[in-house]
């Protein structure tokens, strides 16, 4: 009897923390059986690669919390990288970074304005912005990579503090900031309200338009931070890279407990989702699964995670 109770409790925990449970299991199994998995070198590699997705996923989380979606992230990474690279070669590091952040945020603001002022679904709006961002990147760069040889900047891509990549530390700091924002600031808290029930939120005096504008703008900004780091690591701006990054960020949010219906999802869950995908990616590479198969494996894992997460759909009123 008590054994059953324990089992129930374990199942419940797994149901509501499926990403963390999966991460723990995978981590233990991989450490035991996958050669070269357990070790500082591999962990650092995962952090390098997935801190970029991490920034995108945080932005995606905010958008998904309002029951929206941002498909433009991959394009905006490429767009940011081109803006940063072009500006850096002319005006130096800081104007370039500022310019890159501003440019991508601006496109996020445009998406946010359209989503909040019209009835066009976010899926369509950001699909449009996906084309706009990629197109602008191609136009500005004439479809060629723009190399960056400012060492102060490219070094930053590899920088670490006591072995931990600076980009990962930055991601943690930004996450803490967001944690505070969505828990203790009215505007941040209202993101959950809008996603939970837009009409109720509006009637409660929540400025729904402002909230929606904000999340797309923040998604643009956070994507740009990822884009700047990406540029530093590549030593160049690329108009054709970062394809499908938005899919990884969406997957991380969902696997981390977010609901595409809005109102449900957490910063920490999203980070767990990101790390989980980083670990999965690393394992697939280390055991030598062909990159062609990797997409399939990840896709199946997303479906599994979402199926599990149905357990935690919020119950509806009446």
């Amino acid at each position, binding site marked *: 009897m008590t054994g059953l109770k324990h089992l129930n409790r374990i199942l419940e925990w797994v149901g509501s923390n499926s990403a963390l449970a999966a991460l723990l299991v995978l981590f233990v199994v991989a450490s035991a059986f996958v050669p070269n998995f357990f070790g500082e070198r591999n962990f650092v590699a995962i952090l390098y690669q997935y801190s970029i997705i991490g920034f995108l996923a945080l932005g995606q989380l905010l958008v998904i919390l309002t029951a929206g979606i941002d498909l433009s992230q991959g394009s905006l990474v490429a767009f940011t990288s081109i803006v940063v690279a072009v500006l850096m070669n002319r005006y130096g590091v800081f104007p370039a970074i500022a310019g890159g952040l501003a440019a991508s945020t601006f496109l996020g603001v445009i998406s946010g304005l359209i989503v909040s002022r019209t009835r066009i679904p976010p899926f369509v709006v950001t699909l449009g912005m996906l084309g706009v961002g990629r197109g602008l990147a191609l136009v500005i760069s004439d479809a060629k990579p723009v190399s960056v040889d400012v060492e102060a900047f490219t070094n930053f891509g590899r920088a670490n503090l006591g072995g931990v990549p600076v980009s990962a530390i930055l991601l943690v700091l930004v996450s803490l900031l967001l944690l505070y924002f969505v828990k203790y600031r009215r505007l941040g808290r209202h993101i*959950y309200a809008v996603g939970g029930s837009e009409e109720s939120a509006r009637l*409660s*005096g929540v400025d729904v338009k402002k909230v929606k504008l904000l999340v797309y703008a923040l998604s643009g900004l956070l994507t740009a931070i990822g884009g700047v780091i990406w540029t530093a690591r590549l030593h160049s701006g690329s108009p054709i890279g970062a394809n499908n990054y938005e899919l990884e960020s969406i997957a991380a949010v969902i696997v981390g407990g977010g609901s595409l219906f809005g109102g449900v999802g957490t910063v920490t869950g999203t980070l767990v989702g990101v790390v989980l995908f980083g670990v999965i990616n690393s394992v697939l590479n280390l055991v030598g699964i062909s990159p062609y198969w990797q997409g399939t494996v990840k896709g199946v894992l997303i479906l599994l995670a979402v199926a599990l997460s149905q357990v935690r759909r919020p119950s509806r009123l*009446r």
Partner: protein
Amino acid sequence: METAAPVLSLKKISKSFSGITVLHDVDIDLYPGEVHGVVGENGAGKSTLIKIMSGAYQPDHGTIHYQGQLLKNITPRWARENGINTIYQEIDLIPSLTAAENIALGNEPLGKGGSIDWAAVRSQARRILDDMGAHLPIDVAVGNLKVAHQQMVAIAKALSLNSQVLILDEPTAVFTSSEIELLFNIIRRLKAQGIAILYISHHLDEIFQIGDRVTVLRDGYLVRSGLIAEFDKPSLVRAMVGREIDFSLRNGHSLLGEEILRVKNLSRSPVVEDINFVLRRGEIVGVAGLVGAGRTEMARLLVGADPLQHGEIYLNGRRIRPTSPMVALGLGIGMLPESRKEEGLVLQRSMAENMAYSLVQKSSRAGVVPWKSIRREVASLLSKLEVRPANPNLQVTYMSGGNQQKVVLGKLLAAKCDVLILDEPTRGVDVGARLEIYKLMYEMKTEGKAILMISSDLPEILTQADRILVMAKGRIVAEVPAAEASEEKILAFALRLESEMV
């Protein structure tokens, strides 16, 4: 109380939607510390009145004074922030947030540096709920609370905004009697605090128990208004009914054939309880009742749209188990659903295709759709139904409500149904199409089909049905032959006043 000035005063309020006037010159005054009941049949204009008070609609004519000031073009947000709060039937809370947070939402107490002070959020919620005399967990997502508790959270939320006027729209629709008592205690406390309450309810008992004044609406007109002491239940019901009924629409006489459908002890607690009735060939049985009486839910059980809890269904004497609407359709029981746009039609497809969906089931050979014969059948149905324009390739979304409804009927005819369950068959349909639908119903009846017609339009029930079942709170409370039925009688049953009215 008589001498106090009204806190909210509506004068000569009119409102129409696309040419149909739903409120005509309605006056209503709400006094501090008083409960003002508003009663009326479905469609009498109660909801529109509330929406005008709460800023969701603007009146076409008339004035609203609040605390002595003329209000112009107010928004729901303004109304809420300035003390006019509505607790709607669909509760306006955010299911994923806690009770405490829902109460504070939009007005969260801030502490140091503008951060939300969560301790204050919780203590405020606790204080308001204690003042109301409501005891419920405040740290649970409201989606997981009982409906009665959700409503208390909604009231608490209104009170947190210093409500002067509280509008309760059918607050007890899904309450148990002990929950109603709890709500009344809360209302009494609010009255003592000088809050004006507008109380909309179908339950006249409640109006007499808690109300100080009552206003009766009928077809958008104010019929009577006064202190509750001036009324008794029969006089209130008489004021509610009395619509013009055109008996020339009378749907012929009964053509009783043999029994086709028998329903025994049908239940799905708590919405449908122990339903028993018989349906014969060649008759139209009307199902009357108030919104929320369980009529649609009962219909859904008959076609297997929802699973049965208890009960047996017999078709032509044989027990059937319709596990899905598709199975039911195969057996010859078809339903015209309440909302044709969501449940009855695929709006983006042509009317031929819509009708074909039910044909495909019957006539496919080895999974191949015989389009040629289907097209022939659809064409003959379209001419029978007099659908206009009679273009089978027209997208349904471009058709008028009445013609859309005919297409749904066509689906049922195409499936060769013998038992037709029509849920609000003429809702949102113009007069001409309404008559044509009546004519079709009559034809089906003469062909020996049986029709169960759910309708909130009492004149429609009285003119079209041969027999009337009245439902209340999930049960059939009365069965009345058409010849003995009157609007007053049906309504008395639906309101469950039969003992007091007779």
